[in-house]
């Protein structure tokens, strides 16, 4: 089976954000594989181990993203592709990313493409379904279970807390939701092997893409931090009197009940 995983390098969830000059400062920040993409990588490896084939992880970014690709290879992916847009693309949005990925994937005859259901930085959740639409293949988002039996793919997906059971077939793009699996940590032998696994670097030219074709459709005008919350009130006294004070505050002061 020919399996591709779309991954994104993101800020570590532990990071506090600093905004200056209208941009989020990346200096000194730790980066990770987007946590939802880790579920996608884990699932891809599991599917390959059960059905044979090859797992290729693909990302768009600059050379820094090589580290996250090596991590995916250390987890067990077979090959990695970095589409380096550093010199060609100044502003990227979900349209841009999906276009580039679809151009890369269009002649790969992928049976299964996996991605995270959302990236924890931009949080748009668009790129996976957009890629599927451009490739004219079916997609299923926020999946929590995947079973492939011959031609049939049985999936459970999370829809706002409920579990929807469905059937579809390959080729298919799915996006991973938490609960799909427990991503493995790279083992030491895995990390050693990863250094020798193929990591291909491509630029837009290699994909015959003109910069104009991938111009972002949307524009970010400003990035800012939410206003700092004023310190709240810690109530005092016996617990029962605190509770009745809280109820009256919620009703009369905060007016939320």
């Amino acid at each position, binding site marked *: 089976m020919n399996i591709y995983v779309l991954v994104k390098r993101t*800020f570590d969830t532990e990071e506090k954000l600093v905004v200056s000059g209208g941009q989020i400062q990346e200096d000194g920040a730790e980066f990770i594989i987007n946590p939802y993409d880790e579920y996608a990588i884990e699932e891809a490896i599991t599917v390959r181990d059960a059905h044979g084939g090859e797992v290729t992880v693909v990302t768009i970014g600059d050379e820094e993203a090589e580290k996250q690709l090596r991590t995916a290879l250390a987890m067990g992916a077979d090959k990695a592709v970095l589409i380096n847009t550093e010199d060609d693309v100044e502003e990227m949005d979900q349209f841009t990313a999906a276009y580039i990925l679809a151009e890369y994937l269009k002649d790969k005859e992928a049976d299964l493409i996996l991605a995270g259901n959302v990236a924890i930085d931009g*949080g748009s959740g668009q790129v996976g379904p957009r890629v599927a639409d451009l490739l004219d293949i079916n997609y299923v988002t926020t999946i929590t279970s995947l079973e492939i039996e011959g031609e049939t793919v049985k999936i459970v997906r999370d829809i706002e807390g409920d579990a929807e059971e469905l059937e579809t077939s390959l080729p298919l793009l799915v996006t991973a939701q*938490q609960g799909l699996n427990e991503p493995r940590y790279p083992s030491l032998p895995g990390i050693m092997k990863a250094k020798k696994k193929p990591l291909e670097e491509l630029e837009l030219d290699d994909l015959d893409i003109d910069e104009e074709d991938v111009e972002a459709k949307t524009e970010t*005008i400003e990035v800012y931090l939410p206003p700092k*919350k004023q310190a709240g009130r810690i109530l005092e006294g016996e617990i029962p009197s605190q509770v009745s004070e809280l109820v009256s505050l919620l009703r009369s002061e905060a007016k939320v009940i």
Partner: protein
Amino acid sequence: MSKKVLVLGETREGALRNVSFEAIAAAKKISGGGEVVAVLLGEAVSEFGNELVAYGADRVITVEHPHLKSYTSDGYGQAFMAVVDQEQPEAIVFGHTAVGKDLSPKIASKLQTGLISDVTDIEGEGADAVFIRPIYSGKAFEKVKLKEDGVVFITVRPNNIAPLEREERSGDVSSLSVDITNLRTIIKNVVRKSAEGVDLSEAKVIIAGGRGVKSKEGFEPLQELADLLGGAVGASRGACDADYCDYSLQIGQTGKVVTPDLYIAAGISGAIQHMAGMSNSKVIVAINKDPEANIFKVADYGIVGDLFDVIPLLTEEFKKVM
């Protein structure tokens, strides 16, 4: 310049969702006086048309088909694109719901336009409209607009944009017949896991538990309070990892990002990842044994105490006054 705006109306358990009314209000702003046309897709949905008019839609188009009984991106995609072809809208608004999140990228891709998802506020009107959306799960915000001419397409986060007052208004409800074919996904079953049908993302009140809840049973008093207030129960990652509850309840940077009117955090210490998912709630109450817990830093009101003492008392107290 006024714009014609299409809004996707959604139903859940036999009623229109609030977020659809909020989407109409957002559409009104974007329209700058242009026409707002609501779209309803389903097996039998025309009965809901007038309600969308009452909340501000100028006109409603329904597409009814047995293949639209359950949502599939193929079925809904074909139906919605048929409406787009007929109406040629200049803007589109969906709710940022399970359906909205799944369908909007497909429609945006077909229209080759930008999609500004998970919008929480709109500045300006008509052609000058600029959209505000959280990034990094609410640790920061960005203002975004469409770069050039094209269909303005947004999804709005539930609970953030106030709906218009419900009024007697008049508007045409018409149906469009669409041939829906070649569905690549077959829905077999939906297993209800969410309690009482109150969805976390739309809940006005959330009672969330953390490691301090200590067990599956420990969530029962939280559920009781949530039921009383018409809210939903959520959880921190700690509680989910400890198997006290399902991952579908998790609130945080991984998990759901929520903005209810009232968020009660019980036995949650307040890891940065959890705070990202809830700190934009309108009012936050923290209940924790540890007076140094981080969660008190974002709380409007705090009670230092054992949640198993506080929550049942809170339920009793609310029962007295409601």
